[in-house]
């Protein structure tokens, strides 16, 4: 126990002394929160819109004003023919063109099915998808109103109206969606990368050899080395949630103990993964590359942090089952945004627990073999 304490104290002192690592541990999370919170918003506003109104009725003008008043679209041009559509899109003056056919007003009044055409610049698929989404929602709203008015004018017939309501994140603010991912991402950074680097650094410096000559066992050494990173990562996760609550009005709807417990479970697996990497890598470069490839990138790309898993190819979706951050994100979003209890995501917690146990066993197996590199 005293030996363990000596390792913990030493590691804390080293973290404190190592300015670069400390900077990474403390400021990178804050930096990312600001970047992702303010800059990397997936909401698109002020989309330049051109309109070709062949109907020129009050109904058609209503559709146009619905677009403009939504705040998502800016009317940049009113055009007269198809040639102008090409020109505006080619020049990039407009990202979307709305074409309202002649007879639209009459059809709307008599509740005859009709359509409007939306031409969208697809050079950026993500933006295009978002633009189409906004437009479809707007048109559906207008259409619903006409439907209601038409039904009221000719009595009888049931009134069925679809009313969309977005839960948990009613304004569809991407920040709220990103914060849980950010916690996972930073936990991976501190837990996996820092742990792996700090152990491999001791290998390179020869201090590990010196420690192995002492009566400290591998267990006390590794626990002693990881405890400080566990504390730092946990504090960092709590700080991110706190900062996001202050800066971005993140609702923390669930229970704090559940949040801390889930983060801890995730961290145990991540720290063990860092230890596992350190037993394979002999130099810090190799350790860093291994950590980035196997933990950091998957957390970024394959966890649902930024790219929704449901829109990935099937093969890639299968891969995501091996990414612990995937489950962790579900849990975090459940706690922070939905405020649900463990009953709602026990499967994900179980997956995290399995990951932690498997990696811990692998790491301790490898470590034991390395520690007494003798057989």
């Amino acid at each position: 126990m005293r030996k363990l304490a000596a390792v913990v104290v030493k590691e804390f002192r080293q973290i404190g002394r190592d300015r670069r690592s400390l900077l990474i541990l403390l400021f990178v999370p804050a930096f990312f929160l600001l970047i992702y919170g303010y800059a990397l918003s997936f909401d698109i506003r002020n989309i330049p819109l051109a309109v070709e109104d062949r109907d020129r009725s009050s109904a058609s003008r209503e559709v146009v004003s619905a677009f403009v008043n939504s705040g998502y679209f800016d009317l940049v041009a009113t055009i007269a023919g198809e040639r102008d559509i090409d020109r505006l899109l080619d020049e990039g003056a407009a990202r979307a063109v709305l074409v309202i056919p002649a007879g639209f007003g009459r059809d709307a009044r008599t509740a005859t099915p009709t359509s409007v055409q939306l031409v969208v610049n697809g050079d950026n698929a993500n933006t295009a998808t978002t633009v189409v989404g906004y437009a479809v929602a707007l048109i559906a709203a207008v259409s619903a109103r006409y439907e209601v008015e038409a039904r009221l004018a000719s009595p009888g017939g049931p009134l069925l109206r679809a009313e969309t309501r977005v839960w948990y994140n009613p304004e569809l603010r991407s920040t709220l969606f990103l914060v849980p991912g950010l916690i996972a991402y930073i936990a991976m950074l501190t837990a996996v990368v820092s742990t792996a680097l700090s152990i491999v650094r001791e290998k390179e410096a020869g201090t590990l050899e010196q420690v192995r000559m002492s009566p400290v066992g591998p267990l006390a050494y590794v626990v002693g080395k990881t405890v400080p990173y566990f504390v730092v990562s946990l504090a960092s996760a709590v700080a991110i949630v706190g900062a996001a609550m202050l800066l971005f009005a993140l609702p923390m709807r669930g229970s704090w103990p559940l949040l801390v417990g889930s983060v801890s479970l995730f961290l145990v697996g991540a720290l063990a993964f860092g230890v596992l990497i350190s037993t394979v890598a002999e130099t810090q470069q190799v350790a860093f590359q291994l950590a980035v490839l196997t933990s950091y990138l998957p957390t970024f790309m394959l966890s649902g942090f930024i790219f929704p898993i449901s829109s990935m190819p099937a093969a890639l979706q299968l891969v995501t089952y091996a990414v612990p951050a995937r489950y962790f994100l579900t849990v975090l979003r459940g706690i922070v945004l939905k405020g649900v209890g463990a009953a709602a995501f026990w499967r994900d917690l179980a997956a995290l627990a399995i990951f932690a146990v498997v990696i811990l066993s692998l790491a301790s197996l490898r470590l034991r073999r390395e520690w007494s590199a003798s057989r």
Partner: protein
Amino acid sequence: MNTIEVRHLTRRFGAFVAVDDLTFDVGQGEIFGFLGANGAGKSTTIRMLCGLLRPSSGTARVGGIDVGSDPEAVKRRIGYMSQRFSLYEKLTVDQNIAFFGGIYGLSGDRLAARRAFALEMAGLRGREGALTGELAAGWRQRLSLGCAILHEPPIVFLDEPTGGVDPLSRRRFWRLIDELARGGTTVLVTTHYLDEAEHCHRVAIIQAGRLAALGTVPELKQVFAGRPILEIRAPRPVDAMRLLDTLPEVEKTSVFGTAVHAVLRSAETPPGEVAARLGSAGIAAECRVVAPSLEDVFLDVVERSA
């Protein structure tokens, strides 16, 4: 009483035999030198004796404990220091002492007393707060030794402890080793500085994993009994050597700095005769018999066992 007993110790890495059938004893309070070229098997032997590497065959008892069966018990009784002075460079002198004291289970009064001892020994009193990485090599070396013996181990292993240290610090370091041994600590030290081996009570020369010679320094020099060594100073040493190699009286030659050493087959050959032979070939040489140095011994042993 023997503190270290090594019997037929062997270590293989695949087909490569790094340590081949070593047998020797080290007594309590003895400074035992391990001499050999790089890759001769010195470090592998030390790692086995420290319980870090399991022997392929043979046994080694360190402090009465078999290293193969109870390496952890061995680790409690030994101190280990290597040429890399494995301290935490980003921690202060005091923090390093606290860490190594901690992992050896020291605390309270004992830790305080040993801390004072280590600081005194390393000459670092008053510099407790200095960053270890900013100390000169000599200080780091002594601190490293201090940290390795905080727990007062009866046996100390030093693996090339003086690499990269200036001669003055090396001398000071060896004084510390002498003091340790006089206090009853057994010291096993590897080195490739031959002058340092003169500090050792006994020296083992390792060649390709095998024990090539073992004894006190005067004993080792006995290999040259009846084979005097001539030191020859000539303006063209290479030509002189070429000629010397053709003489029937000369067993072998080697370069020693600016001079040439020639080992004669018999003590009967007068040095003047060799000088005359060189002179008749147009090489004005100065010849005199010298006492064998440990370097002569080392080269001779290594050549003959290769």
